[in-house]
């Protein structure tokens, strides 16, 4: 079983998984964010030949979650495809795997900034944003305070000092009212949660749940480090 932990957002009980997925037991819904299919081949077009296995690696991760949790609904929180040409570059084998996966559940694509409209071939419903009970799903956190908002987009990572080592990992970032999910794409990089881009998103005390091999590890804001040795930025 994938290591996991309970997180409450806007009083809803959610399960955060160590591979970056989120599960909402009450609604039997699996949420994944920023899959960035075909990022590798996007770089290959420019002559940077990253291993062409990132789409498969990402798909395998999502498929494993569906097998393990058997959700009724899957929500992709946007930026599922790295660019408009992703479908054309995708290996047929990978495309079929994705097709079958989407067909096996109620699949909802939330639109992101990288993929204005997901390729029709794969099916599923498409929404700009979606309110479900007490939770609001959208790609990028709104400028106004939206209680119960689950978003992605930023690819949050956290950095901490453990003994003498510095550890930098993808993370779930939440203050109990809103939550930003980590990117699940195999080649998706990250933006430190202390970066000014996150300013104003969290009102309450921020906790970063860092993804580990055997579990998720919570760190309060005052334990987090920025990426350079720069002064700690005020968070919250």
């Amino acid at each position, binding site marked *: 079983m994938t290591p996991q932990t309970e997180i409450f957002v806007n009083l809803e009980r959610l399960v955060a998984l160590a591979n970056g997925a989120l599960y909402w037991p009450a609604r039997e819904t699996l949420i994944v964010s920023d899959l960035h299919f075909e990022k590798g081949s996007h770089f290959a077009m420019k002559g940077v030949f*990253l291993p062409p296995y990132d789409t498969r690696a990402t798909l395998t991760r999502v498929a494993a979650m569906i097998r393990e949790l058997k959700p009724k609904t899957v929500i992709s929180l946007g930026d599922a495809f790295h660019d408009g040409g992703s479908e054309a*570059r995708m290996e047929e084998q990978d495309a079929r795997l994705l097709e079958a996966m989407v067909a096996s559940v109620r699949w909802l694509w939330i639109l992101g900034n990288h993929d204005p409209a997901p390729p029709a071939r794969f099916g599923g419903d498409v929404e700009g944003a979606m309110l479900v009970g007490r939770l609001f799903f959208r790609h990028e956190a709104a400028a106004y305070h939206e209680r119960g908002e689950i978003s992605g987009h930023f690819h949050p990572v956290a950095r901490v000092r453990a003994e003498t080592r510095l550890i930098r990992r993808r993370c779930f970032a939440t203050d109990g009212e809103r939550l930003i999910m980590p990117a699940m794409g195999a080649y998706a990089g990250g933006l*430190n949660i202390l970066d000014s881009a996150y300013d104003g998103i969290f009102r309450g005390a921020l906790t970063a749940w860092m993804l580990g091999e055997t579990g998720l590890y919570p760190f309060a804001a005052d334990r987090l480090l920025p990426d350079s040795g720069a002064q700690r930025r005020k968070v919250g």
Partner: protein
Amino acid sequence: MTDDIRLLPQAFEDWFAARGWAPRPHQLDCLRASRAGRSHLLIAPTGGGKTLAGFLPSLVDLHEKGSSGALHTLYVSPLKALAVDIARNVERPVADMKLSIRIEARTGDTPAHRRQRQKYALPDMLLTTPEQVSLLLSHSDAGKFFSGLNAIIVDELHSFHATKRGHLLALDLSRLRTLAPSVRTIGLSATIPDPAPLLDYLTGPETRADLIRAAGGAQPKVHVLDVERRIPWSGHSARHAWRDVYGAICASKMTLVFVNTRSQAEMTFQALWSMNDDNLPIALHHGSLDVEQRRKVEAAMTRGVLRAVVCTSTLDLGIDWGDVDLVIQIGAPKGASRLTQRIGRANHRMDEPSSALLIPGNRFEVLECIAAKEAIDEGALDGEENRDGALDVLAQHILGVACSAPFAPDDLYAETIAAAPYRTLSRAAFDQAVDFAATGGYALKSYERFRRIVKTPDGLFRIRNAHVAQQHRMNAGTIVDAPSYNIRLIGKSGRRTMGRKLGTMEEWFVEGLAPGDTFIFAGEVLRFEGAEGMDAFVTRAPDEEPRIPSWNGGKFPLTTYLAGRVRRMIHDEANWPHLPEQLREWLEIQRDVSLIPDIDEMLIETFPHNNRHFLICYPFDGRLAHQTLGTLLTRRLERAGAQPLGFVPTEYSLSIWGRRDMSALDMDALFDEDMLGDDLESWLSESVLMKRTFRDCAVIAGLIDRRHPGQQKTGRQVAFSSDLIYDVLKEHEPDHLLMKAAWADAARGYLDLSRLQALLTRVRGRLRHARLTRVSPLAVPVMLEINKETIVGEAQEAMLKEASDALIAEAMRR
């Protein structure tokens, strides 16, 4: 001699005579070989007139035949600064004899307009670095540029022929031989034990370079400092001997003080200044200091205004620095060849003996220093392990060749295996490297349509477009710098606008600092104030104790050869009377309470101490190999239920401790060579080490772009991380070329696997296990290392001292 007079033109005879010099025999040998069109390797100690010997044939040839308007001689140096200095030195005789020869240097620092001009108006001699040669060869006019080439001089060849830079240059030399088939190659090297790999390096397989040795200089006078005071049990600082070092500096004209790490250089420099009542000009020189600062120190040395320089390996190579009459080595020398080369920095006149003083930092280092002294007295040197040509380097070279002109794979393969490091490369491996350069070389062929190298109708391979060449040139070279911060000094007001740059420090060190932390750098105690972008801002904190003790940099492993000598010294009781009193006593008690192993045996001791159970072995194979051994042994012990808790390696021994008594274990099974199979593999797959070597290989091979200084300003916003790529590749194509290259680097650079393999083979069936009831004398140094790792901070100094005194008392009880 009549022959030699004909050999050397009159103008040159006169030039030598005007200086009161005579050409040295090896200089004439080089000239003779060159006149016969032979490549050659000159082995000469520093001060042997090596540079002139290298250039003399070209100067004579240009004098006799006149400049042809083509590039005549290419000089390649591993050091940028050396290329520039040598240019100045060679200008001297050229100016004196009024020869019409144009000499220019070309390095990464040469302004673009001059580099451009060099391609139109070719100088007669170009002095440059391996990276620049590679870049020149990647241009479309490379054929024209090099077609008239007569001679290639490779300086300090011993220092880099077996590295990735050496591999790249070997491929470039092979290419140059294709472009200029009659070119001669001249290698210049310091004294080395086995010239064969260097001779192979200089030519293709069909011929072999001549070997020319300069007459050996006077035997150096080497002393090992013998002190009455207690010799420390562990540590490398040689704190106990700083007074003696200062005394030796006072008694000499000019002293080079070599230490093994940059932090040790800082510490020693501070200590010498704290006792410098005579205000002697003592300077500091190491790789983290700002280039300007280093050049100032070098210039001051040349002018002869300094009395001592505390330095690291940064001064191992280079031109002659004034009148150095004493070389001091603080801490263990680690290898006889390195020590010989360092000692060679003193008295650059071959007829006068160099003088050197070795300062051991601890007891084992005393043995090591004595072993090194004896080796030098016998003229013995340690060999260097050769390694097969790196595949990431080959991939870069292939793309570079394609950038200059379309190539036929058969021809390029033939050219590649003519380069010594690649002589055994299979065609399949070569084709894989071509495929890598073209598409990334993946089993899944989805990138065919994005090929960087395409096949033309006539079967040649050419690059897709000019963008590929541009991208290649941005990423060429084999040196992947660890990301580093500029250390900038600011005033107390804390204004961060500018700040004078003191030097650079590795990223990991700076990122481990918190504002307010103090450390020693550039000879001062500094306080870290914060960082922005790639600048770390510091203020002076002269009154504070440095809180963060040290940073790494420049550690050499003990050579196999010297390790063998140390093992013999310990084993050979007949030799003990020649050792310092304290060491003799140490070994005698060891013999009485534990045992002294035979030369080919390895001693293993088990004993309880402070509610822990210890297993200590003494392979003497260097910290790296011991570190790997420790990692693998603890995994095995874990499986055997021995509950190991930790381990600490030193250069000489390895200590493992745990909750359970390990004395009943089957040692032969524990140390069996099969640990290099599954145990190694499963450990590596979890370790971050492979990710580090993978990143460097990916950059060299051109898979991911280099970070350039300008780009670094934007911080960490790299498009993707090499760690993520590694994870995906490991899972989906574990035998990819880059994975192989990363493995080869890890095995050599971080694990010392070949040495561990040799160690396990050597001691198989020859383990001597001593089951003891308490710590033994030989175990004390490594036991103190354990304390050091777990107890830090000044408040605990007293506690540490107490604990170590008790430990030593226990060990030295008969």
